[in-house]
């Protein structure tokens, strides 16, 4: 796919810098260009987590105690983290980008990266400019996304970081120019390396990616191990990391909005009961069980709250799910720190009814008797007992199959 209209690039990287702040600007467009500061969540350290360039220009920096922000920057707008809104914006952007390319990999957490696989898209878009246009249309301009094109994920991410914000001018790095593009850049772009490794690299005089590429592979691998070897390959423009789309997991969800925000456990449980009644009656859950429940809430103080609960036992009834959730919410700090205005419940980890697991250690003696009875039946039917214990045999062995063995149960 090499032509003037479609340079030799395999990956597009879209990066939304300072995503939590841009999400707030998306909600309040008038805040664009004003000094914004993101503080810690309730219960966390009261320091600046993230600040906009305008706040930085006034002397605010990440790690600064929040009480020092207003004296330094009287016009600063101090915000609390809003993971639910940030996640919903990320989800929306991901869904829109998946209409541009079928293979989109979101970055980790809320780092704001998205990688699009461009292979095979030339037939659809014809020119790369048309693809750029489609990406531009998929992302709200207020998020100020940056776009980079390259032949691998690493170079595309670096290109996006160096691109002008706002998609008006993307950064293009064709395969043949990757090494020259990376060479003058600081080794600090190699975020796959630990900060200590980067510091040691700089102490050794390796300041640019080009310096790293000039070293012998063996020397780099000896000094910095596997990550160093990977970094050396990236420095040479050899990036074969595939783009791996996030697996789609089936879930059932529902939500409620309240005119009077809910503050007490009783009110919250009543709302959860209603949500469970609705979700468990949906056809997708018929004859199935649930392993995880995610609760998301928008709170009356303008912040949001999110919890993911994973249960030891698969839950296949509304009552079982209710009891399990109540036991979690009854814990200290189980409830959100402010009254709830909106509550969403999502059931995940859907499995078959047969996936229910009764507790193994309850009524142990009775269970052993039942197992012994089952063993007798199996022996009568098959002439042997196909029940086993897993035992350690050679845990120190370098050969995986020698470490553990299955031993026939003596019942």
């Amino acid at each position: 796919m090499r032509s003037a209209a479609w340079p030799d690039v395999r990956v597009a990287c879209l990066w939304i810098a300072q995503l939590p702040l841009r999400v707030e600007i998306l909600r309040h467009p008038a805040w664009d260009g004003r000094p914004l500061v993101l503080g810690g969540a309730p219960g966390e350290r009261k320091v600046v987590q993230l600040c906009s360039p305008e706040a930085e220009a006034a002397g605010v920096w990440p790690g600064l105690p929040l009480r020092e922000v207003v004296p330094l920057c009287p016009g600063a707008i101090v915000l609390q983290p809003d993971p639910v809104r940030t996640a919903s914006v990320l989800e929306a952007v991901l869904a829109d980008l998946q209409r541009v390319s079928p293979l989109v990999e979101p970055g980790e957490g809320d780092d704001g990266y998205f990688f699009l696989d461009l292979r095979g898209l030339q037939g659809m878009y014809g020119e790369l400019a048309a693809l750029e246009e489609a990406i531009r249309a998929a992302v709200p301009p207020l998020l100020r996304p940056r776009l980079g094109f390259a032949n691998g994920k690493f170079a595309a991410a670096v290109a996006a970081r160096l691109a002008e914000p706002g998609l008006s001018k993307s950064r293009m790095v064709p395969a043949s120019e990757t090494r020259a593009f990376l060479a003058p850049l600081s080794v600090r772009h190699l975020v796959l390396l630990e900060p200590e490794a980067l510091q040691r690299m700089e102490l050794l005089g390796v300041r640019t990616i080009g310096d790293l590429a000039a070293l012998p592979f063996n020397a780099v691998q000896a000094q910095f191990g596997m990550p160093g070897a990977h970094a050396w390959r990236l420095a040479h423009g050899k990036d074969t990391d595939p783009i791996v789309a996030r697996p789609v997991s089936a879930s059932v969800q529902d939500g409620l909005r309240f005119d009077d925000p809910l503050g007490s456990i009783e009110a919250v449980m009543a709302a959860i009961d209603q949500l469970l009644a609705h979700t468990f009656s949906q056809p997708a859950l018929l004859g199935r069980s649930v392993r995880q429940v995610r609760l998301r809430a928008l709170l009356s103080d303008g912040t949001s709250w999110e919890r993911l609960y994973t249960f030891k036992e698969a839950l296949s009834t509304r009552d079982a799910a209710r009891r399990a959730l109540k036991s979690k919410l009854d814990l200290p700090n189980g409830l959100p720190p402010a009254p709830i205005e909106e509550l969403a419940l999502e059931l995940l980890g859907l499995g078959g009814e047969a996936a229910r697991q009764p507790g193994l250690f309850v009524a142990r003696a009775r269970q052993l008797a039942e197992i012994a009875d089952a063993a007798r039946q199996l022996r009568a039917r098959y002439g042997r007992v196909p029940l086993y214990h897993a035992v350690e045999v050679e845990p120190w062995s370098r050969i995986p199959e020698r470490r553990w063995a299955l031993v026939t149960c003596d019942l």
Partner: protein
Amino acid sequence: MVTDSRTALGAGDVRPLIKLSAGSRQRSDLRPLNAPSPLRVQTDAQGRIVSIWRQGRLAPRSIVAVQDCWRIDDEWWREHAVSRMYYAIVLDDGTLLTMYHDLVTDSWFEQRS
């Protein structure tokens, strides 16, 4: 695409790897966990592995990345030495898999570690 002419070994051809001490249980009472299962590999003209066919699967899967490789040489003092080249690979459906090339028998296996 060249299909590797080395056919997969049957499960019974994998050498027993659990050693029994004298007077211990009968061999049939000890079954190795994570025992390797045979694989068929396909190579390209340069001899590089491009796809694998796992036991019980309907079709081969192509390899999109090799994340790691390492070699184990062990028990060279015994009659049956162990010499394996392991590969941690990513398949085109995103599956992560550990496989090895048995350098003694020139055959390929999948292994859960």
